[in-house]
């Protein structure tokens, strides 16, 4: 199963690199980085500059999962490749995961962009005090993003107004995911739903990796991110398979 997965990843990477629409979110990253860094610096909060660099990375991670990866099944239906994909011996969900994985990896380029803007635009070099933990957390975050994007890709196909759903899932998740503002600073009634999102755990832990003090409860926090990621991936795979079967039954796999 790894060869179809790798082939789907490679094909998606090649397609995204040649599609300005897929790359557009990466164009926005430097602008967001400038805004966040400028706010922190003008407020005299040099202790939050690291968070300001991290925020556009997480924001972009979610945005690309939502808009680019979340659109993959719908695009396969629109371009009528879906019937041919379903008719191969490889389960469609495997193809979907490979392509979402590629999009997620591509979205991590945002980290390099944000770092470069901070370094050369604001003369600030982000310091990662716990680099191994940072790398592990970022990897788990990417995996969890893949799982969530697979769920969204399946849901958007079934939904009657996927575009509206996509739009309405961006800013609320930025807030609940704590991409810029830690969840602990949100009103108490928002903190409980925020803790159901892998992004809020990931954002907190990534920010902690920038601090000199050793992060607390690392094992539990990593487990929560991994658990939420694996759960969403399992749900996504199941949902994709069900959605494909439903479309085959209804005769609505292709849009013709």
């Amino acid at each position: 199963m790894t060869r179809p997965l790798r082939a789907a990843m490679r094909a998606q990477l090649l397609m995204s690199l040649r599609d300005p629409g897929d790359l557009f979110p990466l164009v926005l990253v430097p602008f967001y980085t400038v805004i966040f860094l400028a706010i922190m610096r003008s407020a005299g909060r040099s202790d939050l500059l690291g968070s300001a660099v991290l925020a556009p990375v997480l924001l972009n991670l979610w945005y690309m999962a939502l808009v680019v990866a979340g659109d993959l099944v719908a695009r396969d239906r629109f371009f009528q490749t879906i019937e041919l994909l379903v008719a191969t011996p490889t389960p469609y969900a495997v193809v979907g995961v490979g392509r979402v994985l590629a999009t997620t990896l591509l979205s991590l380029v945002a980290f390099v962009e944000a770092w470069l803007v901070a370094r050369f635009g604001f003369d600030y070099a982000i310091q990662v005090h716990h680099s191994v933990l940072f790398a592990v957390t970022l990897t788990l975050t990417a995996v969890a993003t893949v799982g969530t994007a697979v769920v969204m890709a399946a849901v958007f196909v079934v939904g009657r107004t996927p575009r509206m759903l996509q739009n309405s899932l961006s800013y609320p998740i930025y807030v609940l995911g704590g991409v810029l503002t830690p969840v602990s600073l949100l009103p108490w009634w928002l903190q409980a739903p925020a803790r159901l999102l892998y992004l809020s755990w990931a954002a907190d832990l990534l920010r902690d990796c920038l601090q000199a003090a050793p992060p607390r409860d690392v094992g539990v926090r990593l487990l929560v991110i991994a658990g939420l990621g694996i759960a969403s991936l399992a749900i996504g795979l199941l949902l994709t398979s069900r959605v494909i079967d439903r479309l085959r039954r209804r005769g609505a796999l292709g849009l013709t």
Partner: protein
Amino acid sequence: MYVVRTSELRRVFVTGAGWRRRGTELVALDGVSLAIEAGEVHGLLGPNGAGKTTLVKILSTVLLPTSGRAEVCGRDVTTDTREVRRKIGIVFGGDRGLYLRLTARQNLEYWSALYRLTGPEGRRRAAALLERVGLAERADSRVETLSRGMRQRLHLARGLIGDPQVLFLDEPTVGLDPVAALEFRRLVRELQQEGRTILLTTHDMEEAESLCERVALIDRGRLLGIETPRALSGWIAAYERVDVAAAPPDVLDRVAALPGVGRVERRPDGGARIETVAEGAVSEVLRLLVGAGITALGVTRPSLEEVYLHLMGGHGMTV
């Protein structure tokens, strides 16, 4: 040995259904029973909306039938989908099914992985197929830069990447210019010689005649019958029409009495439409009309749909 077999296959689509509405039922396939032998090129001929694509979609496992049974290589298409998918290849007409931003080679290598070929095997087969369909020189060009004919040949290569025993060609030459269509048909003949079983849907009688050993006529979801292309061609030749701008009544009476003339429909303006029901009858009609000094006339051949209607109405073909 039958490679494709359907029994009382039925597919009903429900359109316009909502929370409170039941929707309208559209019968796309109505009790189709068909058997295709190994190595046969079998045509599926019918007008748009006849149910040809629906049948191909069911056989290729992307659509579930409402009732009935369909098997490919002895495997049920609804319960044994994975095995069926290993044995089939699909080629759609038009621009469907290729990734425009990838090159021809990248497309084929991608699809080869989905058909579970190893990396080296996929690369080898992609190169061989590109050579075979005459695209070796454009192998590294993006699909979006290829002409329609080239894309269609690439479609065929994509359909062959898994080395299928059974190939479904769904109106593969639609939109192609005559030269590209001829080239495509040459490739299909080669595949036939390799012993692959091919189901070809088309609404082009000429295409069916040049490629198929047998042709199933399908209309409004029903299988009207299965014939050789030669028999179908004879029917079309038989049901010709001669339109005359103006003709004296006595001439039209003499035309009506000719053998093979089915009907003479006189118009109030003095013109008429003469319909023949036998091959060669039209030349006798023309000889008589020209001999009577009538030269403002035209001969037209009926569409397949019209032939079907004739057949349904009087020919007595198995329905």
